[in-house]
């Protein structure tokens, strides 16, 4: 308990969908330590994003508690910065304005904002793009800005909802390395949602595999491969195979559900 940073205890989440109760999350217990990099892995509909949104405070659990440093979560807040999948930059703000927005809300003094922005632009290799609008940036660049915007808040926790899902493979690997570098440098606690096994194995200290409806934790796996990880190594691929099997079981339950729904239609 003492070194637990994010603590999820007995969390249930029930949605109403088409007059039916959908159990998105069921009896979730999860402890994340300070500075740990945890991936939530599962097929669509397994509740991994629901769990992330609950930790973010966007949609609170139906029952159970989520605490950060012992304090119950009731609202979204800058102590848990979130990076969204796509297009979450404000298109009417330049790169620089996007990054400073959170600091302005906080009421940070102007010189401190300037210093912070310069530091972040440098850190994420965005210095040449500070006056650009998001529409003029590539997908990878946009996610760099989104990460910088969240880092500006100095929040101890980063919540990431499939942040690299829309990127091409090379950009994706590039940003994964970048994220690992930032994580090592800044010692953030990261909760990262993905449906890519390889991404989870490449990034995380721990990978939490979730089941398709109701969303429960199927496996909580510590990945103790040394970094930087070699995606071609036998150890990596053995884990990949194991996780692949776990995931395919859930995927086939998802498929059955979808076929059933299609048959009803």
């Amino acid at each position, binding site marked *: 308990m003492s070194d637990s940073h994010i603590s999820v205890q007995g969390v249930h989440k029930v949605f109403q969908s088409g007059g039916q109760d959908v159990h998105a999350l069921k009896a979730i217990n999860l402890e994340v330590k300070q500075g740990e990099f945890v991936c939530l892995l599962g097929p669509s509909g397994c509740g991994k994003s629901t769990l992330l949104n609950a930790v*973010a405070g966007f949609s609170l659990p139906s029952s159970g508690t989520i605490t950060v440093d012992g304090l119950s979560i009731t609202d979204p807040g800058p102590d848990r910065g*979130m990076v*969204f999948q796509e297009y*979450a930059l404000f*298109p*009417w703000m330049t790169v620089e304005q996007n990054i400073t927005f*959170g600091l302005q*809300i906080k009421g940070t003094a102007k010189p401190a904002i300037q210093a912070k922005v310069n530091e972040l632009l440098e850190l994420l290799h965005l210095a040449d793009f500070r006056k650009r609008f*998001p*529409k003029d940036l590539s997908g990878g660049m946009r996610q760099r800005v989104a990460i910088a915007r969240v880092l500006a808040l100095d929040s101890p926790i980063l919540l990431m909802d499939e942040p690299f899902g829309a990127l091409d493979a090379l950009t994706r690997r590039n940003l994964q390395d970048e994220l690992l570098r930032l994580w090592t440098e800044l010692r953030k606690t990261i909760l990262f949602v993905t449906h890519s096994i390889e991404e989870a194995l490449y990034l995380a200290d721990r990978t939490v595999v979730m089941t398709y409806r109701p969303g429960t934790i199927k496996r909580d796996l510590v990945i103790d491969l040394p970094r930087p990880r070699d995606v071609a190594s036998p150890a990596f691929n053995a884990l990949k195979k194991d996780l692949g099997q776990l995931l395919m079981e859930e995927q086939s339950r998802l498929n059955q559900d979808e076929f059933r729904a299609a048959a009803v239609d």
Partner: protein
Amino acid sequence: MKSYRRAASGILVPLVALAFWQLISSMGWVNATILPSPMRVLVKWWAYLRPLEAYDPAQMSHLKWVVSGELIQDAMGSLYRVLVGFFIGAGLALPLGLAMGYSKLVYGLFNPLIQVLRPIPPIAYIPLSILWFGLGNPPAIFLISIGAFFPVLMNTVTGVQNVDSIYLRVGRNLGASRLTQFTRIILPAATPYIFTGARIGMGTAFIVVIVSEMIAVNNGLGYRILEAREYLWSDKIIAGMFTIGLLGLGIDTLMSRLSSHLLKWHRGLEQA
């Protein structure tokens, strides 16, 4: 080269139309009173544009003399009504639209009334406008305000309602207060819609100004067209119509320039 060719192809159809028009007039296929030739319209337009009296430095400044022609006086009169009416209409529509888009309560309160009033064409208010405001500029400006009000209102409501919820989620995540959410997220996100509404509203204002000048005032382009009809001056009618077209085009171009400048962040304007 490309822009030159595009300009050339853009002028082709008007030239052909003009040549055809000149042809049927020169050949005497139509009565000149019903359709005067383009040349006659141009001559009349020039006469309409020129100052009525010879320049006399003792009487007025040169600039004042240059703009003393009937056409310019009429155009300025119409423009004045359009602008005042537009700003009153849009000025009332904008805050109401923001409130209706933002608050379901305000929307529920106002929407039924708005939906009943919106289909009524501004022209239908003519009798009441004269009863309420008498003659002269006030009834005209009242009608124009109504014409500009609804497009701005509807687009503002839609703009605010269509703000992508992810921006609001980011705002909450960054700790933005409701006021900050409104001024820094909802308002800028809605501006493309608001500008579209303003452009449509300005177009409506131009339609309404012409009609309103036919009833309540004694200058302006609409008044002059009606006056010319009394004397069967069809060349002057057409000259007045083209002036309205050019004036409208000018205003619309200005508004579109302004919006692409202010919305240079917007994806839809990348090519514009």
